[in-house]
């Protein structure tokens, strides 16, 4: 009887993590609300609509190709540079969008938090949905390039969803922590754009990881984004199988993700009062 959907109890008791996640899942409509609103408003009063996102992607790819392929002649082996950097940018922009906007998710929605009931975790999660939508646009470009350059469609493509989820988890693990901490400390908003901007250079987004000297290769292995890029290139562009040492970067991220959710849950009930 007390588990009836229409019987709600509010008290000072803490819920279990399982019940918490169940409640988040039950409120999937709220997550999609935030995501849909953001996507819809992005193209409001534009003529081109989603074509704009394609245009932005194509311009970025063109600029990077001109600089690093035509002028600097970065060697990407058998993979054409256009495809190489498209995969890199697809992954990196997803990460930078998620950490850049996701951290602000709670603070920007504080008027809603004060007046509405929903699991606050929906806010950073909705950013993941939006970033996934953007990633879809990039992925369609990558697939077109694969066909143009006659890359074979192999079994490796089956792993793509796993890598995309992993890409989201890397972004989310940081986003969830930042959005939770930002309730009290907004210092992070100033720092994050620098880290993202700087991170793009130490991550093999527009150059292959092999360009990093062997002595410094630990820099790659502790960088989870470097690992996920190798995985994506392996899956989409017949890149080499990723070095197992990339797990050094990815395992901590999984831990960060899990603890982030636990921390978020522990402060969830205080968010309304503190924000």
């Amino acid at each position: 009887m007390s588990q009836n959907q229409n019987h709600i109890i509010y008290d000072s008791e803490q819920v279990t993590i399982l019940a918490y996640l169940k409640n988040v899942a039950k409120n999937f409509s709220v997550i999609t609300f935030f995501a849909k609103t953001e996507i819809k408003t992005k193209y409001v009063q534009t003529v081109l609509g989603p074509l704009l996102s394609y245009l932005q992607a194509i311009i970025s790819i063109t600029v990077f190709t001109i600089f690093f392929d035509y002028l600097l002649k970065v060697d990407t082996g058998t993979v054409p540079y256009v495809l190489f950097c498209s995969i890199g940018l697809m992954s990196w922009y997803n990460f930078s969008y998620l950490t850049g906007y996701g951290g602000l998710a709670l603070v920007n929605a504080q008027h809603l938090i004060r007046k509405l009931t929903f699991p606050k975790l929906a806010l950073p999660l909705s950013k993941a949905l939006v970033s996934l939508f953007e990633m879809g646009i990039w992925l369609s470009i990558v697939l077109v390039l694969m066909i143009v350059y006659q890359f074979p469609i192999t079994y490796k493509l089956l792993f793509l969803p796993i890598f995309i989820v992993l890409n989201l988890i890397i972004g989310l693990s940081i986003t969830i922590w930042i959005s939770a901490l930002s309730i009290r400390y907004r210092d992070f908003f100033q720092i994050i754009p620098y880290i993202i901007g700087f991170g793009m250079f130490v991550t093999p987004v527009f150059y292959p990881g092999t360009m990093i000297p062997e002595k410094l290769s630990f820099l790659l292995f502790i960088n989870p984004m470097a690992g996920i890029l190798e995985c994506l290139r392996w899956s989409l562009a017949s890149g080499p199988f990723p070095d197992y040492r990339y797990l050094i970067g990815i395992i901590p991220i999984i831990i960060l993700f899990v603890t982030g959710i636990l921390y978020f849950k522990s402060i969830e009930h205080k968010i309304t009062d503190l924000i």
Partner: protein
Amino acid sequence: MKAFDQNIAVSIESVSKRYYIVDSAKAATIQGLLHIKNKKEFWALKNINLEIKKGESLGIIGPNGAGKSTLLKILSGITKPTQGKVEIFGKIASVLEIGIGFHPDLTGRENVYLSAGLLGFSKSHIKAKFQEIVDFSEINDFIDTPVKHYSSGMFIRLAFSLVSNIDADILLFDEALNVGDSAFQQKSTNKIFELIDSGKTVIIVSHNMNDITKLCNRVAYIENGEIKSFGKPNVSVLNYLSEVGNKISGPTYLATNESVLKAINNKCETIDVSILSVKIFPKAEPLRDSLYWCDELVIQTVFKKTSNKLDLAFGFNFFHQGYLFLSINSLEAKSEPCTSKDTGVYIIETSFDSGFFNTAHYNIDLFVSDDLGENTLQIKNALFIEISNKPDKSETAIFRNQSLFAGPMKTQTKWKLKSVDPKIAENIPYHE
């Protein structure tokens, strides 16, 4: 156990809510690092117990900062109680702010679907209700226009229409009733009546006592986080209003304070008069310090006239709960004109029957003007009186409360009861 009572919609069991008065993030961090604990706490709600039955409409009233909104926030699950427990039986929709979640750039249609999702209703559910929502809001032609182009009235109409038509079992409204123009206000009030009649439970926080007494069948008056009174709307509203009245005007006084007189006399140079005293008393027993209904009352004003140029007129304005309700002046006196051009000290007595006053509080302003009406001297709240029933009169508490709330006036009426022959019941003469 209460949980098994089918008739209860909301049960609030000893709910308390504590807030900390927060310092800036910097100060808090430094204190946190140094393990200094000097959190100041503040209890917004203290041990609230309420039970709301299905189909009931509860009004919550009280001054600003009393804890009304905190209670609504706890009921809608936005914030957790520090102690105690709230149980809700049924689908709840809370409207702490009308139009919350509406995005200005999206069309009315998109906003209805999206924000219904935010309130926890599925798309198919809204699809079935959509036409109803649009019809009620009367904005058919504009439903596909971005809401930023709506007038504020249209925006609010759509938002109210959404929440009142989505078929929740329990609705919470925080000051969301006076929306739109007066025609739509009437419509929204009727809608709430309709919701109550159809068995919905409605909880309303409002500062509009008319709405509260009209719409609610029970009212909780909250102050300082505690329930001061809970019961029939008239009783709670009255308790609240008299509390407010006491706070604003303090205790009653039957004579004007001397220092007030002094200040007024010093300030007023344009009119050649100084008021020496103003007091009110019952004619029958001038020394009694309470005024009873139907007493003949006398206001006695002593003044000194310092020039013989012009004549003076005296008047009194009576206020009931801040509204002017009666104005009398010496120029309209029934007796012979009471005027004198000569200088000197005078006593002017104004007498009237108090039978048409209600048993309530009244503020009385005094004004004196020269007979050209050009210069006036005014004493705001010269007197603050309470008319009460004679103590020996039998009265039930509820009648006293009703009459106190019923307005500024009352009159002496005669009531007669007699039995008649049923055969002539159709043809009873007006008078015997």
